[in-house]
């Protein structure tokens, strides 16, 4: 073989290899998305990845973990750990897995922080409201269950990782914080799987990390409470933050001109009336999920003091439709 030809062929071969390598390494990152129905809601996971295969694997393992959490925490599944705790209310303590113990501990913390406005044992009052058949309970029925809504009667024992509800008839329902917790755990898992950016959206409880592939922040719309599910009232630009909204439009019925919705005030058993919706932004999903509900049921004056004291980022829509955005959220918020 002539030396010149050999050199030329070697150069050509190297160029070909470089082209292939560039193609592989610089494959531009794409957005991959998958939705499943879990935890009684639609969960959508979005990741940014150079590789479809790696994205698919990461999303699949995240959904497997969510199915595991659902089996532990479901209020409706008779085989869940939460159901075991409820069956043993007033009887005995139930040993639970680290996830259930951790989430119950956090739920109790948030209940204490919000002086009971977030209440993980509101179940007995909640079940009296029938939003499917638009039926409200009698005053006496509600009054009877109020003593069962005492979150200080939840006893946690760290030494054997057990939970006990002290009074018969008490009901633990982690539904008001489980989706925020699930978003936190999911983001952790997807980050460990090498996903540089994405969104874990447990319906309206959302946590984002990183940025969109073009480097801009993720855009999360806030629903307009009196519009259709597509109408937005504002858009948040978020990086590495969680957001939740509690609204009076999610489950409700209207009777005699009054809107009865699912955000129940624990001291009365009746829906709270001062807001149409409350949006909270915070690094942690457990905070946004639990405190959006807490702020909603506190009522206007208490809510504003609570937000200030805890330096929360919040967007409030009052019952009359006027709005308030806390100063620390204004840079991230765009009106529609």
């Amino acid at each position, binding site marked *: *073989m002539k030396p010149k030809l050999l050199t*030329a062929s070697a150069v050509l071969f190297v160029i070909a290899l470089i082209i292939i390598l560039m193609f592989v390494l610089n494959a531009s990152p794409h957005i991959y998305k998958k*939705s499943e129905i879990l935890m009684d809601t639609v969960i959508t996971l979005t990741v940014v990845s150079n590789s479809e295969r790696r994205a698919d694997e990461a999303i699949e393992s995240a959904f497997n973990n969510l199915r595991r959490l659902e089996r532990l925490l479901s209020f409706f599944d008779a085989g869940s750990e939460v159901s075991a705790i409820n069956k043993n209310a007033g009887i005995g303590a139930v040993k639970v897995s680290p996830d259930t113990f951790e989430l119950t501990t956090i739920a109790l913390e948030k209940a204490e922080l919000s002086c009971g406005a977030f209440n993980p044992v509101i179940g007995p009052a909640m079940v009296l409201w029938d939003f499917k058949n638009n039926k409200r309970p009698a005053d006496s029925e509600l009054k009877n269950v109020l003593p069962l809504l005492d979150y200080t009667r939840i006893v946690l024992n760290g030494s054997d990782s057990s939970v006990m509800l002290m009074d018969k008839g008490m009901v633990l329902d982690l539904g008001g914080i489980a989706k925020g917790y699930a978003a936190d755990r999911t983001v952790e898992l997807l980050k460990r799987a090498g996903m540089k950016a994405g969104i874990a959206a447990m319906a309206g409880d959302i946590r984002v990390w990183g940025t969109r592939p073009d480097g801009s922040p993720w855009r999360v719309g806030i629903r307009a409470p009196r519009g259709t599910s*597509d109408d937005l009232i504002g858009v*948040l630009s978020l990086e590495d933050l969680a957001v939740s909204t509690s609204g009076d439009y999610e489950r409700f019925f209207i009777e005699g001109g009054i809107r009865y919705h699912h955000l129940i005030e624990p001291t009365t058993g009746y829906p709270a009336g001062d807001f149409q919706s409350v949006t909270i932004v915070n690094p942690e999903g457990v905070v946004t999920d639990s405190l959006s509900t807490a702020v909603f049921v506190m009522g206007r004056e208490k809510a504003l003091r609570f937000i200030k004291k805890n330096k929360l980022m919040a967007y409030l829509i009052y019952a009359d439709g006027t709005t308030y955005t806390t100063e620390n959220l204004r840079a991230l918020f765009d009106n529609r």
Partner: protein
Amino acid sequence: MTIAEIIRVTTLFDRILLVVLLVITGASIVLVPLYLPRGGQIMIEANNKLLYKLQLSDDKTIEINGLTVEIKAGKVRVADSDCPGKVCVKQGWIDSGAIICLPNRVVITVDGTPTAPKGGVDATT
């Protein structure tokens, strides 16, 4: 022209060029599908079980869990549903993204290059 003739009339450089082109072609066949998103595949799941894997080009109508799913001219929609809100029906035709019916637990996903996000947002709270 036989292979022997081809070998005789080509120069060494021709043959090397041929090999290089074959390497690029072979590598592309393997790597391109791995790194580029697929397009035009419809997945229909009910109760989180994958029941149908179809192409957007397959014109057909499917009845599943109380939903009538219609695929036509490269798009998919829920033509009818027995659920109360009918959010899935109102969504209309899509050629990327997903249609979800929560009451009937059906998820229809179109695997494709995502178009601009709906309403300019990536998620809604």
